């Protein structure tokens, strides 16, 4: 297995507040990697740094052995839309569907930079097979979908461009437990069937660690633990702080 994403000592500041402090971590190709941590630990900031939506003030990020973001002024960091075109797809927290557009138009946007129309059409049908509820609602405005359906649509939209790596920010947030289970099942399938590497951020630590191969734990902007997910599930610190045992 090769290294797909490598984060090397990055720090991110919002004004005087340091949201991330010298964070280093990596994602191997084909894995599902989970990042757990409390509210405000910096999880979303880390994802935004990966997609180039917040500037780094220290360190660098490499994707497929190429430096894509750096704090150095003289070396250019890639803008978000170029990172998307390289194969990094983020499903943002709160889903951020294009509410005024239909399900199908949302999926079209997910494949914005795919120029082959027949491939886009095929991919869309694939998504409607994988998420049948979206097929049934393809002509509906996305705002009329339930929270769970919107989450599935946001995931389907991200998959439209056949990304190398799928980033998910709190995919279970605000959804009923059964829906969350369903969504995590889909995520595992996406990983095993379509060979998409997954990096997910989740407050629901048990769900995240049970569905992943490796886990990282973020506290106050620092990585404090990293291990195989099965080991983290047995870790006393994780059990006390995140699993409520």
């Amino acid at each position: 297995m090769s290294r797909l994403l490598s984060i090397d000592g990055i720090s991110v500041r919002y004004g005087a507040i340091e949201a991330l402090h010298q964070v280093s971590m990596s994602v191997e190709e084909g894995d599902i990697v989970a990042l757990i941590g409390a509210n405000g630990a910096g999880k979303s900031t880390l994802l935004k740094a990966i997609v180039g939506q917040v500037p780094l003030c220290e360190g660098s990020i490499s994707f497929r052995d190429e430096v894509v973001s750096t704090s150095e002024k003289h070396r250019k960091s890639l803008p978000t839309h170029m990172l998307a075109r390289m194969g990094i797809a983020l499903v943002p927290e709160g889903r951020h569907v294009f509410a005024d557009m239909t399900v199908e138009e949302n999926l079209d946007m997910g494949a914005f930079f795919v120029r082959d129309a027949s491939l886009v059409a095929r991919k869309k049908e694939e998504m409607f097979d994988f998420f049948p509820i979206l097929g049934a609602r393809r002509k509906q405005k996305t705002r009329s979908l339930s929270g769970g359906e919107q989450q599935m649509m946001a995931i389907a939209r991200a998959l439209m461009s056949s990304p190398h790596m799928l980033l998910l920010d709190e995919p279970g947030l605000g959804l009923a437990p059964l829906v969350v289970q369903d969504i995590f099942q889909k995520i595992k399938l996406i990983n095993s069937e379509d060979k998409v590497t997954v990096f997910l951020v989740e407050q629901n630590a048990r769900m995240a660690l049970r569905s992943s191969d490796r886990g990282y734990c973020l506290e106050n902007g620092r990585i404090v633990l990293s291990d195989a997910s099965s080991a983290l599930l047995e870790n006393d610190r994780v059990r006390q702080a995140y699993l409520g045992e």
Partner: protein
Amino acid sequence: MATLVQYLQYLLNGITLGSIYALIALGYTMVYGILKFINFAHGDILMVGAYTGLLTYTALLGDSTNPVWMLTAFFIAMLVSMAFCAALGMFIERVAYKPLRSANRLAPLLSAIGVSFILSNGAAWIFGAQSRRFPYPFDDTPIVIAGLSITPHQILTIVVSVVMMVVLTLFVNRTRMGKAMRATSLDQSTSELMGIDVNRIISMTFAIGSALAAVGGILCSFDFRVYASMGTMTGLKAFVAAVIGGIGNIQGAMIGGLLLGVLESIGAPLLGIPSALRDTIAFAALIIILLVRPEGILGKNEREKV
């Protein structure tokens, strides 16, 4: 008391004027939809469009009085003017607005007012204070049907405006770039995640809006003549139309423009006020809309299902 036929006449005149407002209002609303910013230089773009159209038309025409060439030259002049204004709009965005995108909201607004003065004073300096007539590219003898008189330039205005609006609607709803423009106006940071180059979309929005303003500028110069500050009042009215329709909403700008044109045209005789005061009607309509339905006719109050 005016008769029914007279009112129908006012309605027709109102639709003509309103379709011009609609074309110009589209530029305000599209830019607002994406940048949440009112481009106050937009009115002056229509003036530049009118001058470019006029100069190109008279240059092409020369001494010719061939009716076919007159109309052909007019449409070529319109395309040249659209292209020139599209380029100018993109240039202004790049130079005067883009560097201020992360500054506070007042900065680009002030920059736009500055650009507006530069354009209108520049035009006054180049072309002088004297207003010019835009010659009709055809014989403008009104056609009278059942007491209702319609001039060829009114027909031209309505037909050209409708074509522009249909093309824009198809572009925005059917094409990949058009959908990307809608996506960007709905959610900029998510659009980036889809691989959409938001800067390119913004440039394109300015180009389209400015090209439409060029058409509006040419069409309104038949009635209003061409002069350096012609964009000020017409631009302001079109802005009012955009707000009435729901700023940020493309259909809203079209409806708002038509409605404002008709209100202005019918309002004065209906209320029995002198037609010189008809500008007041636009602003009275604005105040009423802001009080009763601040989001405009088709605007929505930003509530979303979470």
